[in-house]
């Protein structure tokens, strides 16, 4: 078989003065300014704070759309545009310009971040109503969106890294938004610390990139990618994988994401769908020319992705918290995206990123809507039968569920199939396809469980939660649901034509593939180990089986769940306890870190402090001996003075005599 690696054009142009692309720096700046304004005078604005924030993100959304259409109007080879904004650093000959890079990849991300972000802002009007820090919440949401936009628009590793760190900061602020609860504050810290581990990888990768190419700008580094020594390229690829795994919650750094649902539900939607976790996938796609030179590293990325997808899907099957199930499903779906970008099908990865953005935002917001109706209850076993009471939430969730379960013709089906088809070709990837197919079944299973337990079946809440009378959410919450549901249902059209399913990378026939082509370097083989059509059929059949299994377990009458759990025994416990990963980290890393810290404290106390104290004690000891000289009697001092004088006189006179002699 042969592997084809696309060539990277690496042509970058300048924007036309006054065009939307030229003014694209306003896209992140406006929400950032709005965040600053809201932080300063937000309290006085009262509920109008939300309007300011929505206007700001709405501006970004419209501006992004105009920039996107301008980009579409340009000829294909001129669609990577760099517009300089300012000089950031100037040290001798070395200069870091603050520029904005708009290319197809960035434009697509812009649309996702701003529009989904806008919907989440609108949704928050209703969801956060009555919160004592209402304006601050919107300030943070704006900041979060602005950070992500800086990340997406960065034209160099350094500017991207600024956005990367800002995203980390704003996620910390939002996850810990209700910091009065200790567990929430801890979750925020956990997210921040785990992300820092990835950041270290990012920084070292940057140093390597700079030492290998002498630049950090994508426009200079990426075209030089094939010239980077392969050892260095492997190191860069692996370190960037560490960075991406941190932000995008992959093994071994995924532990922060499930805890991150401590924040208000719109924040979870923002983190899981539009911002933050997509950053890692975006990064790997952005530097795809480097990964294309070392496909082995890409394969590692894909294996990490599929392992994460499997682990998270297994955990999601037994969780009893509607947000937690969604959180693990995000980890799992991100694993799929990593498979795509790792195997050279960056378009498929980004495609799944987009469709996932729609349906995961939808599902999270729907979960929020349900919680809103159920007095913040998150246990699906206490719900059931909400279909009639919350018709809009039900109908939109239905579309979200069908999309994530991968059933045709909804969006998740197309993007997931495209990723799995990519795993048919490359050598060493067959296992990825097999596991990915199993995960597709698990995904359909746990999402059906989520959906069935909440919306169908008997109304368990009447007994479990007396006094709760569920109701449909206000229009500010249901409108975003409806719009996202449209995206979830129809998002597949972005890149789905019959041809693109049979041959996953086909620039001629599908929109996203041809549009993204200048930004990425796809590589692909030509000998799938299963022909494409049967492969797609198998995956779909597995997904349908997953739905059927969930139906049999959770909708049929007379299933004894307690007995079933006991029969599964260890397997159930393993999944329910999240494979004890947190406990493992606690036992090894946390305890180890503590031990190391204790060792250093001891070293500090015994050796460092010991040296200082020893010197002090030595001086004190000398002083006890020396102080005996001080008798306090004037005559003894006088005697010393006299003796000294005689001595000096003797020396000088002796010297004089010798000089004469």
């Amino acid at each position: 078989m042969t592997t084809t690696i696309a060539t990277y054009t690496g042509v970058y142009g300048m924007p036309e003065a006054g065009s939307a692309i030229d003014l694209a720096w306003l896209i992140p700046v406006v929400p950032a300014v709005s965040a600053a304004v809201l932080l300063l005078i937000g309290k006085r604005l009262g509920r109008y704070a939300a309007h300011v924030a929505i206007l700001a993100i709405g501006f970004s959304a419209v501006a992004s759309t105009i920039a996107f259409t301008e980009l579409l109007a340009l000829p294909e080879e001129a669609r990577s545009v760099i517009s300089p904004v300012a000089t950031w650093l100037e040290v001798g000959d070395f200069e870091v310009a603050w520029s904005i890079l708009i290319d197809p990849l960035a434009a697509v991300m812009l649309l996702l971040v701003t529009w989904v972000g806008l919907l989440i802002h609108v949704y928050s009007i209703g969801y956060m109503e009555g919160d004592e820090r209402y304006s601050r919440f919107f300030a943070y949401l704006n900041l979060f969106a602005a950070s992500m936009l800086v990340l997406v628009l960065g034209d160099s590793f350094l500017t991207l890294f600024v956005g990367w760190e800002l995203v980390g900061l704003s996620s910390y602020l939002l996850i810990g938004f209700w910091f009065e609860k200790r567990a929430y504050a801890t979750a925020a810290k956990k997210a921040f610390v785990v992300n820092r581990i990835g950041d270290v990888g990012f920084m070292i990768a940057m140093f390597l990139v700079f030492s290998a190419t002498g630049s950090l700008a994508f426009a200079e580094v990426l075209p030089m990618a094939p010239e980077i020594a392969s050892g260095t390229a492997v190191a860069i690829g692996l370190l960037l994988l560490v960075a991406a795994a941190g932000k995008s919650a992959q093994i071994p750094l995924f532990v922060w994401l499930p805890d991150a649902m401590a924040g208000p539900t719109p924040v979870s939607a923002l983190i899981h769908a539009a911002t933050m976790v997509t950053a890692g996938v975006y990064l790997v796609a952005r530097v795809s020319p480097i990964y294309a030179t070392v496909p082995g590293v890409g394969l590692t990325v894909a294996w990490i992705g599929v392992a994460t997808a499997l682990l998270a899907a297994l955990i999601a099957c037994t969780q009893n918290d509607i947000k937690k199930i969604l959180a693990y499903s995000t980890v799992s779906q991100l694993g799929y995206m990593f498979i795509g970008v790792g195997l050279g099908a960056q378009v498929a990865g980004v495609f799944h990123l987009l469709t996932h953005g729609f349906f995961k935002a939808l599902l999270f917001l729907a979960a929020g809507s349900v919680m809103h109706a159920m007095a913040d209850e998150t246990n699906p076993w206490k719900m059931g039968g909400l279909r009639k009471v919350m018709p809009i939430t039900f109908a939109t969730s239905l579309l979200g569920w069908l999309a994530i379960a991968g059933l045709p013709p909804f969006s998740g089906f197309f993007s997931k199939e495209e990723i799995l088809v990519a795993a048919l070709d490359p050598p060493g990837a067959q296992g990825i396809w097999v596991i990915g197919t199993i995960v597709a079944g698990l995904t359909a299973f746990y999402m059906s469980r989520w959906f069935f337990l909440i919306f169908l079946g008997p109304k368990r809440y009447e007994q479990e939660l007396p006094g709760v009378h569920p109701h449909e959410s206000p229009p500010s919450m249901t409108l975003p649901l409806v719009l996202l549901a449209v995206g979830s249902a129809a998002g597949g059209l972005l890149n789905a034509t019959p041809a693109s399913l049979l041959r996953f990378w086909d620039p001629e026939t599908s929109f996203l593939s041809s549009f993204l082509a200048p930004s990425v370097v796809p590589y692909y083989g030509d000998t799938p180990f299963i022909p494409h059509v049967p492969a797609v059929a198998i995956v779909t059949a597995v997904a349908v089986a997953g739905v059927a299994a969930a139906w049999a377990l959770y909708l049929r009458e007379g299933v004894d769940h307690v007995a079933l759990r006991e029969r599964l025994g260890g397997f159930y416990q393993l999944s329910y306890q999240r494979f004890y990963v947190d406990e493992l980290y606690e036992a090894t890393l946390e305890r180890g870190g503590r031990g190391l810290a204790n060792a250093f404290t001891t070293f500090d106390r015994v050796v460092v402090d010991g040296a200082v104290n020893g010197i002090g004690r030595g001086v004190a000891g000398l002083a006890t001996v020396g102080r005996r000289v001080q008798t306090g009697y004037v005559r003894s001092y006088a005697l010393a003075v006299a003796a000294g004088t005689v001595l000096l006189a003797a020396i000088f006179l002796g010297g004089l005599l010798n000089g004469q002699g």
Partner: protein
Amino acid sequence: MTAMAVPLGWYLGLAAALFVIGLVGVLVRRSLIVMFMSIELMLNSVNLTLVAFSRFHGTLDGQVMAFFVMVVAAAEVTVGLAIIVNLFRLKASSDADDVDVLKA
């Protein structure tokens, strides 16, 4: 250089004798008043040396110097006596050995 009735060495010898008497006085006596007088004695022995050399060399430098020493000695007397008076008020004693607050 003019001839001298008394040779220089005699003056120096007398001055040295006075100086040593003063020094021994400072070292062995306990009474602050006596120690004070002994110091004056040492200063005056130095004055004698200065004047003698001045005469011997036929210049006025030494005599001028002697005047300075006297002025300084007078200032020293005022300060020193003030110290002694205050010490007496504090300790009811003018014995140097009664003052050993600096003893370690």
